[in-house]
């Protein structure tokens, strides 16, 4: 059966182990922001072994075989986690042949999962990896349904075992985009979501009848009803794209009714309902640089969104909304800080908070013994424009700090500096 094959393939992808070889590293002398209970450690040492962090502290024994990385005068943080990306799926945005993140389909809606189409050799990955982006949530898209599908979590370190969890969340679009696909009214979009959830529950309680065709018809296919199960059981986050305050309130009410694990994405006007979000423990994934009324659903967009949400106690994560430039989340975090967000909260919003939102924080997101060694040695303050990633580690591997952009740069840089008699740039080797 097609469905079973699909599930098996996905399960296999998730089960493949991380690459076996890994060196032991000791990163010494840096200011370490653990984002865990140890807080900030001056002149700290981080030990990496077999892909994991084995020790973090100011006074840590360094194994004899460890390769030492001197981080004196530098900062060490967990790697950046992109909370909604299309890594490995969309190579060149306007070249449709390289676009695999979204579909225009009513056949697969909630069940659509783009993960099996990921190309881990995508050139977009190294460009971001060398800037400190180490892990990413893959978000699906569907132009014909408010149910966008299911996403996964991938590691950006290589071509094997990179799918770490699949599925990790269900994605839904409401607001203006949802209104459009649902036939032209916001209420219809909410009704579609409600009906889908009701049917998913009914289906789960009556599978045998359904298989005997002795159950009423559902709007969704069996695949989609199955895919909704972890969401209606409250086990899997449901990430809802929504900006307007009233739309957020409406979906919060629906989520409470069905006991969904709601995550708001977008949230331009989330600050208006910050206290309600905090009370209901609904996290918000947002771009903290939105301050223009770019749509009628985001008239209230303002720089204070992230600040007010964090102050109210809402768990926030930052996104750029452009996978090609995912690394700019550092600048966006800096902008949030310049508008009043505490510095550490901005760093959390791009590392440990996305891990918490997707339930990954037991394994990643902070620098603590036993966690995956995803971390970055920064030349300075990671939120500052002049800083850069000095060395990136993903699952304990020191990532080669090279990508296609840097190769292009070096080819033409030598040409700019040289006199005109040299061979054309195409002859430059790498």
């Amino acid at each position, binding site marked *: 059966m097609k469905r079973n094959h699909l599930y098996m393939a996905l399960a296999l992808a998730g089960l493949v182990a991380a690459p076996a070889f890994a060196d032991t590293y000791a990163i010494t002398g840096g200011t370490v922001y653990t984002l865990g209970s140890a807080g900030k450690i001056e002149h700290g040492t981080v030990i990496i072994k077999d892909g994991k962090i084995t020790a973090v502290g100011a006074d840590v024994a360094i194994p004899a075989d460890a390769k030492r990385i001197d981080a004196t005068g530098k900062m060490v943080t967990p790697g950046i986690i992109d909370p909604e990306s299309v890594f490995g799926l969309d*190579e*060149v*945005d*306007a*070249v449709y042949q390289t676009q695999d993140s979204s579909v225009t389909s009513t056949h697969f809606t909630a069940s659509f999962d783009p993960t099996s189409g990921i190309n881990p050799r995508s050139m*977009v990955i190294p*460009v971001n990896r060398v800037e400190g982006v180490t892990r990413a949530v893959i978000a699906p898209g569907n132009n014909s349904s408010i149910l966008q599908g299911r996403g996964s979590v991938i590691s950006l370190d290589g071509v094997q075992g990179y799918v770490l969890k699949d599925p990790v969340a269900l994605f839904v679009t409401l607001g203006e985009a949802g209104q459009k696909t649902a036939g032209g009214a916001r209420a219809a979009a909410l009704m579609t979501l409600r009906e889908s959830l009701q049917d998913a529950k009914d289906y789960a309680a009556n599978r045998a009848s359904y298989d005997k065709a002795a159950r009423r018809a559902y709007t969704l296919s069996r695949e989609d009803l199955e895919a909704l199960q972890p969401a209606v059981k409250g086990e899997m986050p449901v990430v809802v794209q929504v900006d307007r*305050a009233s739309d957020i309130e409406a979906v919060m009410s629906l989520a409470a009714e069905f006991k969904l694990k709601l995550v708001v994405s977008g949230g331009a*006007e989330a600050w*208006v309902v910050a206290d309600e979000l905090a009370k209901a423990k609904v996290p918000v994934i947002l771009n903290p*640089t*939105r*301050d*223009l*009324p*770019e*749509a*009628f659903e985001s*008239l*209230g967009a*303002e720089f*204070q969104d992230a600040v007010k949400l964090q102050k109210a106690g809402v768990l926030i994560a930052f996104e750029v909304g452009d996978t*090609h*430039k995912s690394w*700019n989340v550092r*600048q966006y975090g*800096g*902008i949030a*800080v*310049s508008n009043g967000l505490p510095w550490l909260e901005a760093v959390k919003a791009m590392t440990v908070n996305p891990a918490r939102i997707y339930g990954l924080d037991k394994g990643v997101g902070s620098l603590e013994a036993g966690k995956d060694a995803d971390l970055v040695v920064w030349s300075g303050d990671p*939120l*500052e*424009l*002049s*800083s*850069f990633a000095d060395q990136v580690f993903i699952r304990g591997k020191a990532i080669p700090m090279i990508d296609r*952009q*840097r190769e*292009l*740069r*070096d080819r*033409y*840089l030598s*040409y*700019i*500096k040289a006199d*005109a008699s040299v061979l054309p*740039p195409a002859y430059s080797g790498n």
Partner: protein
Amino acid sequence: MSLRQLSAVACSATVIALALPAFADSPASNSQPDYSSVSEFPPDPFPSTYHPLPSTPTLIRHVTIYTGTGAEIDDGDVLMKDGKVAAVGKSLDAGSGVTVIDGTGKYVTPGIIDIHSHLGVYPSPGVDALSDGNELTNPDTANVRAENSVWPQDPGFNTARAGGVTTLEILPGSGNLIGGRSVVLKNIPSVTTEGMKFPDAPYGLKMACGENPKRVYGSKGAFPSTLMGDVAGYRQAWADAQAYDYQWKAWEKDKKGPPPARDIKMETLAEVLNGRVRVQMHCYRANEMATMLDVAKEFHYHIAAFHHAVEAYKIPKLLAANGTCAAMWADWWGFKMEAWDGIRENIPMVDAGGACAMIHSDDQNGIQRLNQETAKAWAAGIRVGLNISEAHAVMWMTLNPAKALGIDSVTGSLENGKAADVVLWTGNPFSVYSHAEKVFLDGALVYDRDDPKLQPKSDFELGKLGVTGGAL
């Protein structure tokens, strides 16, 4: 009738009076009309009504000054008087009646100039009814003017000003080979577009290379659908404009008989051929920029700047030899095939290669932080050993765009006699944590981060969440 309609009528009446021969002066019906006031290039039909806001002489003291000419003055002073930069130096005398601002720990730069913006023509909110930037009905729309699409109530003008932008060029979009006239605006709140128009700034002509025009028309089964189609389209337009120009020049020798028929499209193109309008050309790839420089040679015009110029780092010497600037993003790449080779060192490499380099936004959000975009590009250059000072990099957002717009004699740097377009920054503008604290336009304080009364809101923003009373 509204004031706006009234002024429009008054405006067109002026145009008619200037453009048509003065029949009333003809003594006899059979003698030739007086064509003396008729010319190939009539006066601007939409003249600027901009007036600087009231200002008081102001002295900013004890600041780090990046003059926009590449120089840095530590613990310096800037004196603004009568809308102009009156003095830049150290320990300047305040004199009487001068407002003194202590800028200790702060920085001053010239006002930021964005050479590539679609504010007003693609405003917020981005609804279809306000989408007026691309006249996609003909690949050559040299006859249209961006200023006739600008909605001055775009809230983006205000947020750009809060980011230190004092001057900006509004361009038509890039869906056409020849998109139409651009307009240079002073970033001042105004009910009319004329009220923002930069007095005497040359017009620009937006042209576009590459994927966009061939996609727009190719997808309709129309011309052009290829790059060679693109180039044939430009060349025919210039050839037609040459013929038009010859015809007018021939007539203007003695003005005998009726003048040639006026053609608004040809008129704009002929203005380019006569050096009155500056070509601002959207072009990504190195080979296409080189081709366009050849076309410019063939028809004897000059390309002021290539915009976007994602591959300019491959040809800085060619750009320098042609005196053509490159206006670039700090790090945009990968959003289409012609942007695949974007690198973050583009601006510093073009600069190091000897060409005129600058930052641009093309974006209602990016325009709010061109200082940060400049800083990112600068930092990328430093990392690969391009030893560029911050003071020099400030030119990328001030004097260099002023040069490409042809307004560098009046703005773009802090030099005596130039417009007092000045930004006081809370800290180093190359830091993500700094804000534009005070923005001066022609010496008038037009934005103050600490004074809500000097944070103008557009009509559209009234009543919305977070702004005023009515919203719950």
